[in-house]
């Protein structure tokens, strides 16, 4: 399986993402600059964390109009797995690939620490390898992770099982403790915590590894004969 790590000016978790896929999983992975015109050769798209365009105007607001984002939309429509972590999640929200928006953390502080997440559903291509209801430790590092959507959208998220991760102790004021959501089709995941920073016990936790393994496994089952 071949992954693209999209790099925007100001991305800073691209190397961690590359390491998770290339070194820990041993899958093919390439950095792709934000003005790339085609993502056709990639099977999975990863939007890393960071501060694209300095978070000017709103987090993700400028990156969302990068040339490559038209291709990310195409990949999402084609059913390819698209994962946005932290700033990547914020970009997916601004692009309208996921519903809702991010507000400043309730405490107004930048929060950088490991948090306990609950797997709300393992019936997604991103969480298939986890147990339903399992508790995992993944670090967060953000100033704007206070997720918001209106009541109607929240009802839809619940009805379609689109809430994938919740915080066990809400660090940022996020609505309904939401840490990560998928789109209705289930192939676009946005999450504030950083699974790519939790892929080896040396880093404090390897709980993020299963997320990437789930993507690869689901993809193999669908695309490779005798997988």
């Amino acid at each position: 399986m071949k992954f693209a790590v999209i790099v925007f000016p100001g991305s800073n978790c691209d190397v961690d993402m590359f390491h998770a896929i290339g070194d820990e999983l041993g899958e093919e992975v390439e950095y792709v600059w934000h003005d790339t015109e085609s993502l056709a050769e990639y099977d999975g798209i990863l939007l890393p964390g960071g501060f694209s365009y300095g978070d000017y105007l709103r987090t993700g607001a400028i990156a969302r109009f990068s040339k490559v984002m038209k291709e990310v939309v195409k990949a999402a429509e084609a059913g390819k797995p698209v994962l946005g972590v932290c700033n990547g999640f914020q970009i997916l929200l601004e692009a309208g690939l996921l519903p809702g928006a991010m507000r400043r953390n309730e405490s107004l502080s930048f929060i950088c620490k490991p948090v306990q997440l609950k797997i709300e559903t393992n019936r997604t291509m991103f969480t298939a390898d986890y147990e339903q209801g399992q508790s995992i430790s993944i670090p967060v590092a953000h100033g704007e992770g206070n997720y918001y959507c209106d009541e109607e959208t929240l009802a839809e998220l619940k009805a379609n099982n689109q809430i994938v991760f919740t915080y066990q102790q809400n660090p940022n004021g996020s609505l309904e403790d939401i840490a990560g959501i998928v789109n209705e089709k289930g192939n676009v995941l946005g999450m504030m915590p950083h699974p790519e920073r939790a892929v080896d016990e040396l880093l404090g936790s390897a709980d993020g590894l299963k997320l990437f393994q789930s993507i690869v496994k689901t993809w193999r089952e669908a695309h490779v004969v005798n997988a």
Partner: protein
Amino acid sequence: MYKVKVFVTLRESVLDPQGKAVTQSLHALNYKEVTDVRIGKYMELTVEKSERNIDEVINEICTRLLANPVIEDYRYEVEECVFL
């Protein structure tokens, strides 16, 4: 030419953590008469006249980029000006 002043604020239904912190700070300074603060953004645009209606252009710009309609409201003022 137009000078356009755009004001973007969080929608009334959305809690503004910055505004809340500033309100508390003002109360600490004994300005008890201040009951609420909403923090927003102010932008000045210089726009050339075109065949398109200025309101149409500004509304489009605001909803597409300057404000996020999910959490923000905007308003604007248009001033026509002549540069010598």
